[in-house]
């Protein structure tokens, strides 16, 4: 597997596509700026959302139990899963009970995190992702590159080719409307035939035992309304205390995500309709571990709007797949080490720490600070390559000793002035696409000494 730097280098090789990717996502960020500035209370809303989430996380156990009791009162069957494996098994057992062979799923990052599709496919269940973007990447045997815009790494030409291969659309047709209609017709059959529908959850309301799913395509609703069994899968951090809190989050979510005032559908599921079975799977999968870490706890406030993706100058130029995780971007980089430190050691370093992510975050997660804290945590665990820890030790030694620092600086400048080939070569990554700075004859300190 390529690390972030290697995968990014490959992505950037196609300069034109990189420009397109960057500009497309910047356009989304600009829309977000525009609508957020129309609300004089924007910053107050962010603060309120942040405080509601902080409060909820501080009392998570209590709210989860309240939610469970109310959901059960409403006739919903509640399951608890400690990890991805348990989650997948629970979902599979519900499907088998109903003799399901195919199911329709609307976008759920949690099921991506748990690799549910793979699990069910191996058990002989056909999983059909019904969001347009998700369906496209599913055809291509890829994973989403963005949590809100899963196929944003693809251009309409790519989609045309994929649909030609899988749906038999005419070769070369890249008309978005035509292709969308083709996907619609293709999906219709699955909606009508499936007896199980899986949806994600955006917010679960403890007070009422209901959950809210926000979509633009309406596919979650169509799936859930047609199927005999509705399974909603959610991470335990999706909890909010009261229904009135929704007003805060729904206003922030769509504005932050796409610059819309609100998602097309904000559907409340409170109880199964007659003859329907409704399940909720509450999943931990490492969340309680993160909850116990002071520096990283508030990453669980995330409402998955992806504003941090769209603003991130690194993400825009490296593409979502360079993060090799279901959730990419800045937020993914602070969530991933919680799952596997050594496999994700590169991600907290895939940032310039510019801080833009924290500024757009609607729930005020200090993302760039957590990137910094993860760097410390991972290096403390000895996950640095040997060369890096040696050079850091060397650097620390030089900077602790003024005489050696002056000498090293002097020698360094001497080399650069009289033997520049020693640094101006292919072994120096700086020099590959940039000139080195001119080395002056004198340092400031030696100038200052002579000035007196």
């Amino acid at each position, binding site marked *: 597997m390529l690390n972030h*730097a290697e995968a*990014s280098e490959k992505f950037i090789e196609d300069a034109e596509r990189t420009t397109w990717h960057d500009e497309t996502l910047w356009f989304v960020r600009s829309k977000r700026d525009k609508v957020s500035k129309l609300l004089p209370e924007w910053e107050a809303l962010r603060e309120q959302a942040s405080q509601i989430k902080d409060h909820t996380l501080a009392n998570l156990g209590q709210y989860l139990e309240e939610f469970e009791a109310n959901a059960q009162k409403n006739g919903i069957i509640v399951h608890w899963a400690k990890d991805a494996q348990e989650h997948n098994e629970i979902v599979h057992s519900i499907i088998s009970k109903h003799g399901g062979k195919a199911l329709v799923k609307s976008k759920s990052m949690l099921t991506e995190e748990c690799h549910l599709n793979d699990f069910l496919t191996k058990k002989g269940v056909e999983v059909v992702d019904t969001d347009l973007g998700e369906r496209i990447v599913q055809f291509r045997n890829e994973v989403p590159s963005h949590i809100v815009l899963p196929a944003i790494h693809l251009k309409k030409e790519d989609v045309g080719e994929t649909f030609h291969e899988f749906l038999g659309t005419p070769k070369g047709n890249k008309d978005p409307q035509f292709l969308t209609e083709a996907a619609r017709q293709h999906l219709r059959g699955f909606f009508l035939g499936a007896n199980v529908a899986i949806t994600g959850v955006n917010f679960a309301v403890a007070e009422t035992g209901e959950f809210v799913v926000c979509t633009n395509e309406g596919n979650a609703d169509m799936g859930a309304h047609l199927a005999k069994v509705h399974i909603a899968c959610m991470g335990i951090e999706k909890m909010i205390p009261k229904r009135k809190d929704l007003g805060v989050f729904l206003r922030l979510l769509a504005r932050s995500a796409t610059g819309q005032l609100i998602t097309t559908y904000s559907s409340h599921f409170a109880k199964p309709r007659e003859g329907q079975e409704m399940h909720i799977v509450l999943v931990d999968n490492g969340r309680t571990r993160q909850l116990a870490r002071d520096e990283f706890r508030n990453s669980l406030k995330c409402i998955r709007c992806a504003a941090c993706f769209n603003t991130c100058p690194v993400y825009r*130029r490296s593409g979502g797949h360079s993060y090799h995780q279901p959730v990419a971007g800045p937020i993914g980089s602070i969530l991933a080490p919680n799952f596997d430190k050594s496999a994700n050691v590169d991600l907290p370093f895939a940032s*310039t720490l510019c801080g833009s992510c924290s500024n757009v975050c609607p729930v005020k997660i200090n993302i760039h600070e957590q990137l910094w804290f993860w760097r410390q945590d991972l290096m403390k665990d000895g996950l640095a390559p040997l060369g890096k820890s040696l050079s*850091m030790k060397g650097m620390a030694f030089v900077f*602790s*000793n003024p005489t050696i620092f002056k000498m090293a600086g002097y020698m360094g400048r001497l080399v650069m002035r009289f033997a520049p080939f020693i640094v101006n070569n292919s072994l120096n990554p*700086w020099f590959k696409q*940039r*000139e080195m700075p001119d080395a002056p004859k004198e340092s400031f300190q030696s100038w200052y000494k002579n000035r007196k």
Partner: protein
Amino acid sequence: MRVALFVPCYVDQFYPQVAIATLELLEKLGVEVHVPSNQTCCGQPMANSGFASSTEGCDTNFSKNFDGFDYIVGPSGSCILHLKEHHPSEKIRKSVFEICEFLVDVLKVKSLSANFPHKIGLHQSCHGQRGLHLSSMTELNEKPFSKLASLLDLVKGVEYVYPERADECCGFGGTFCVTEEAVSVRMGQDRVESHLKNEIEFIVGGDTSCLMHMEGILKRQGSKVQVKHIVEILNHA
């Protein structure tokens, strides 16, 4: 008022003219400036690489050089931010100031004798901007302001413009510039391009590290556009 000049290590070695301009500017404004001679580095290169645990020697050396000053002033938003957030001594954390911040908030400078008859592109480096809040940020719903721009307003002849995406990062990012070389360079190229669209003669900012990165790209492209630290403009007669 005891004021010490903090000269970041790479400025000392590669951009002495920036430290000289800072010193001269402060002296012109009537400040008696001390320059501790055994200063080295703020420790940020190690800390941002995940080795904050190795900065003890660096921190101690900084304290040895700068203890006892009321103000520690340096021409780098990034190094100052690191000290403000991570230096173990509270006294140091409270005494460090980025030069523009010091001029605007402490000295409350209302006039300068500077003259710089050129068109420049203003680069608001992230750590100064978002970390030290030297200017408003496009992500937030806040009143626009910039301490850098308010100082440039006191300079005769200068015309400053912002690039499109006024506060996008240039991609330097400390060791990021070599560990993530491809992204870093691409970000830098994009930043330089949007500055060049404004037909400027200089890219000017408050952090020499960002400027060094963009300078490397400009030079490789054979561009005549130069980079300058803002103090070089404020001190330009």
